[in-house]
């Protein structure tokens, strides 16, 4: 019950925070990609996408996530409407 009240005010328990941090840290550890390399890759992928469809290269997002022992790389970008 106390946990419930505490979470009502602070949002998340420290246990949930730890879990979230671990998922993120392990995803990066398992991919072997340090922060700088990841940003390099993001810029390269953005440039490739931009060759085919109009996008805002700065808004391309890259994310590594892990669940159990599998790690997923997600690149997301919204396509800008074509200027006709």
């Amino acid at each position, binding site marked *: 019950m106390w946990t419930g009240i505490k979470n009502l005010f602070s949002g998340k328990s420290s*246990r949930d925070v730890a879990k979230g941090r671990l998922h993120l840290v392990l995803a990066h*550890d398992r991919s072997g990609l340090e922060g700088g390399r990841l940003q390099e890759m993001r810029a390269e992928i953005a440039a490739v996408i931009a060759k085919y469809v109009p996008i805002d290269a700065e808004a391309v997002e890259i994310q590594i996530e892990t669940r159990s022992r599998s790690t997923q790389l997600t690149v997301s970008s919204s396509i800008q409407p074509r200027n006709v």
Partner: protein
Amino acid sequence: MGRAIVITSGKGGVGKTTTTANLGTALAQLGHSVVLVDADIGLRNLDVVMGLENRIVYHVVDAIRGKCSIQKALIKDRRMDNLWLLPASQTDDKDAVTPDDMRSLIFELKATHDFVLIDCPAGIEQGFKNAIAGADEAVVVATPEVSSIRDADRVVGLLAAADVPARLIVNRISANLVRRGDMLSQSDVIEILALEMLGAIPLDDQVIATTNKGVPAVLEGKSVAAKEFIRIAKRLAGHEVEPEAVGFFTRLGRALGLSATPA
């Protein structure tokens, strides 16, 4: 032919040596012949945790270099019928032995004992590579903390690459803290590391007290941690393990939704 099991963790201070001492003692109590190998060359500790520090004559590096026979380097634990310790050297460093040395040493020990438990040093460098070289399987010890689990995950990856199957022990878990939402539960740790779990050792003052005296907790018997070490030893040896005894009030509490269900 016995089984060689390496106890490892990546991070230091999470309870590898205590786990090695207690699982080894519990396996010996179950009637198996057990040898504990301290692979932490240069920083030996298993001897003091076992209370055998005054009886060391030869050590693992002597045995590998042929200064004495392997059997002669083993220290017999007089409290039990079938428990031995092969201490590390305190003056050499990790490079004094190679993975090949360890592989043939462990192979010979497996011929004379049911279980060879190898206490791995912290880290993932030479000492780790030596310690896992002769192992058939691994027990990864992690405490429910971000840093420990992160390091454990690294070690799990390295063990998989070396084809050493691994199982997990979560050490120093506090049911109270888990219930309050201030500690990762054992199921959180399993979910994150995706490893089969052997057991979870509760945080227990008794372990500190018995370790002060150089007595493995399972020899004094009654503490909650000792009971869990014994259950894990049975599981390791392939004995049937009875489900945890649950008291009347706990069951009542659970039925009323008052206490946390086992995580």
